[in-house]
């Protein structure tokens, strides 16, 4: 059955791509349909079919999901050129063009493969490692070669024993090691990873390169391998689909979903929505944003989560904004969906503005929240909506209940939809 696939011209950090096809054109899967404008990433047809619409924001292709992974190959070229022309972007969610990232030189430095997958519920990175650990490993080797790194680290939560065992089996290069991570949010944040693996705490304004380090998501690495070895551009994305789905709460991993797939179609493929729901979140419960069924999968889409209906708040909310989680705008959106007035907004003491957004001074390490909670109470908050990381949420939970202030967390509806423990006190 033919479906429409809408490929956004901006799926990366940088300017939108410029289309190089016209309405009515027949395109082969893998054919380049839009060019990077400056520091971006090229866009390729994720299915074979007819271009039915080209506008300033997207290209729509009417075609069929392929049964086999056939595609038009990238032109031959050296390692870095292959990576660049494949249109790869950071698939952990950042969307930074991988071609640019891997054109840096960090001679003697470290490439860290980020398999932390620290958002709860999401599972597609670990699933993919278990399915094909060697592809990720080879991608890391290519990345190290591209940037001249001396060592590689695969950072993954210690609890994923099977994935770790499989990775250790395929590692043939002694410069590469597996680093087990604690099971906390936001352990996969760039500066948290560098702190935990290398023992360097970068200031909020610094980039990973300051520590002579490059951090790259493991799915991105597998796409690097595919580009280098098979000449395969980015055509698809691995996605966790979870929440209130028919057949009970479950987190399904759908591998190689064509870019441009409608969210509604993806949910149907996973079983369909089960009854009432609150909202559909794209990506993880902490950082995700709400979407409609007509939104589409991009190169950075990690998760689609159908949440529980919203509980109506009984009193004005105080918002406690964290750098590693939902923005103030997103929290206000949630407050509105809970039918609550916002009595006050406080930002965690560790959150500072750097490089255009809030960054945490020391991600995942609580600076104390007592004064923030008291200020929100003073502002008239009868309950709190917090976005904090594991450690800070734990602190809030040792304060607010003593003040008889109920606490909501931005992840609550997603966690409840999955019958998971809410983000509150740290689990022993």
């Amino acid at each position, binding site marked *: 059955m033919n479906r429409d696939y809408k490929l956004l011209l901006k799926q990366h950090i940088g300017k939108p791509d410029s289309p190089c096809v016209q309405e009515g054109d027949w395109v082969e899967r893998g054919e380049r349909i839009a060019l990077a404008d400056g520091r971006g990433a090229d866009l390729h047809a994720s299915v074979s079919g007819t271009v039915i619409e080209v506008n300033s924001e997207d290209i729509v292709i009417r075609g069929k999901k392929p049964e086999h992974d056939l595609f038009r190959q990238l032109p031959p070229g050296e390692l870095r050129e292959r990576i660049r022309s494949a249109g790869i972007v950071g698939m952990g969610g950042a969307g930074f063009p991988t071609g640019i990232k891997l054109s840096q030189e960090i001679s003697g430095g470290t490439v860290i493969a980020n398999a932390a997958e620290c958002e709860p519920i999401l599972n597609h990175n670990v699933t993919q490692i278990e399915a094909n650990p060697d592809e990720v490993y080879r991608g890391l080797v290519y990345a190290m070669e591209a940037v001249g790194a001396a060592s590689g680290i695969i950072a993954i939560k210690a609890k994923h024993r099977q994935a770790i065992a499989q990775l250790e089996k395929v590692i043939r290069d002694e410069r590469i090691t597996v680093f087990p991570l604690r099971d906390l949010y936001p352990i996969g944040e760039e500066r948290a990873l560098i702190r935990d693996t290398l023992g360097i705490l970068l200031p909020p304004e610094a980039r990973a390169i300051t520590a002579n380090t490059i951090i790259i998501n493991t799915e991105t690495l597998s796409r690097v391998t595919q580009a280098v070895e098979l000449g395969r551009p980015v055509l698809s994305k691995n996605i966790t689909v979870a929440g209130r789905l028919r057949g009970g709460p479950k987190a399904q991993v759908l591998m190689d979903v064509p870019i441009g797939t409608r969210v509604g179609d993806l949910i149907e493929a996973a079983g369909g929505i089960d009854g009432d729901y609150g909202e559909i979140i794209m990506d993880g419960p902490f950082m995700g944003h709400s979407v409609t069924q007509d939104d589409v999968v991009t190169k950075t889409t990690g998760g689609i989560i159908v949440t529980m209906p919203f509980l109506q708040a009984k009193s004005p909310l105080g918002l406690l904004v964290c750098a590693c989680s939902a923005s103030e705008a997103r929290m206000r959106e949630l407050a509105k969906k809970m039918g609550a007035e916002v009595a006050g907004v406080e930002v965690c003491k560790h959150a500072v503005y750097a490089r255009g957004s809030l960054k945490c001074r020391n991600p995942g390490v*609580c*600076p*104390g929240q*007592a004064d923030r909670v*008291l200020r929100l109470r003073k502002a008239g908050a009868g309950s709190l909506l917090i976005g904090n990381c594991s450690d800070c949420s*734990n*602190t809030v939970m040792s*304060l607010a209940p*003593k003040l008889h202030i109920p606490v909501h967390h931005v992840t609550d509806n997603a966690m409840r939809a999955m019958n998971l423990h809410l983000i509150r006190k740290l689990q022993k």
Partner: protein
Amino acid sequence: MSITFETAKQHQNDPAVLCCLRTKGTIISASDLEDPSIFPDLEESGLLNIPEHGLTIGQVLGATLERDADSMTPLTPELVSHISENQMDELESEKITTSPNTGEDPTHETQVIRFNIDKLVGQIELPPGLNVNALPFATTASKKAEDKVIRTLTQRAYPVDQVCVGAETSFQDKVLTIREALCEESLKADPLVKNVELDIIRPEDRHIYSNTIMDVIPIATKVEGILGEGVTHVMNGVIVVLTGVDEKGIQVHEFGSCEGYLDEKIRFGRPGSPDSEDIMIRVNVTVQENTGMERRGPFAAHKACDSIIQEIRDVLKDAPADASTDQKVFRDWKKSGKPRVILVKEIMGQGAMHDNVLLPSEPAGVIGGRRNVDLGNVPVVLSPNEVRDGGIHALTCIGPATKEVTRHYFREPLVNLMAEDEEINLAGVVFIGSPQVNDEKSYVSARLGALAEALDVEGAIVTTEGFGNNHIDFAGNIEQIGRRGIKVVGVSFCAYQGQLVVGNKYMDAMVELNKDPEGFENEILADSTICPTDAERALIMLKTKMAGVPIEPANRKWSQEVIDANEQLMS
């Protein structure tokens, strides 16, 4: 909230409480501890109970946590090990060390004096009889600093015994006559003015109902020179009181107006209010309906009132010098060699009746001045004499007890005190508006900081009128000055009703203006404005801060006892 090492040092003798969950084996550092400055709040909310045997911050730094402990856990000897008793000594930075006596005769010319300097603090006392010329460094040159007068203002006072209404305006033999038709003519001042009435209220007849008091205006006029210098004539024993209402009968104030019986609604004798023996000329203006809370309505009322006063000023100009019973001379000084300071007076600039006319042509007048709202509320410098010669015409409004009326600026105790003080050099009086919008507030505050920096002052006193909205500016203004290393003192009504909603670390020297027993804005005109004793407290506070003497942290709540104790100290 976790603290820095510097904060830990300041609070080394305060109880140590964990800010967050910390696991067994943690070597305790400042970043694990809650800020003691919020302990009272925490205790009050039931979040924290500090046990008697709790350890202090100085004791626990560097110690090891023996088991997992959550946020708000006070550290006790059972919870931590390796408590370092020396920690306190290491933190003790103010220890005085004395170098051993060399045992030689210090007056002997050829010897070398040895100083053992661990820290460049304090002073070295040289023994009497020492030949200072033999020292390898120069002693401070005793340059004789001379105080210089920049300009002089002479105020000649003319007593008024009687005021009446008659056919012509005249002033003779202490009798002021006001032309009857003046009220009708004053309507021409602005089309928004619909009615003007004038009556004379003698001190014994004050139990009389009045609309809200918009201003108290002295009658003064220039005879020689411009504002701030030359000669000014002033009438004593008489004062103009402007009251206002709109055509619908709504008082020209937002809230906290002081309509009522004049004897109950005025705190007589404050710098801004009528004195107990003053005859009041009450000018009651009715403005067009619904314009009382717009900028144009109240200003129209002030213009009409000013046109009446102007005719009185014109006859006062002709009063012969020998009819003056009192003469005051004010001087603007340049006192070289004394620390430069400024007085910053925050004035309201949100529009409507929150406005002020700066530097009118006549003392306390309206015509010829520029309004601070029109000037964008940016800081404007006046010399002390310009202020004392009626350089500010105030359009005050809400909160009559805390607002500074035109007469207040005419007799501002802090300006007088600072201008005449022998130990400081008052470089100028800065008027800065309080704009409506927060962005504008920070804009003008930043300009104030730049101005203070450019004036190269060592100290500043910032005053404000009212409470609430203007406290945002107040905090911003103090911060902008303080962050430049300039010692700054704040003066405001806060008490119970006007507790500061914002603050910063530079607001450590504050002077309370409240005079209400319950700490409220009590709707009595000028009750809680700056009085001479407040001015003295403020100046001593500034001198103390500039001398580097530590100022005790303020109590958590307003307490009259602190003010009483400070006044006791000064007397």
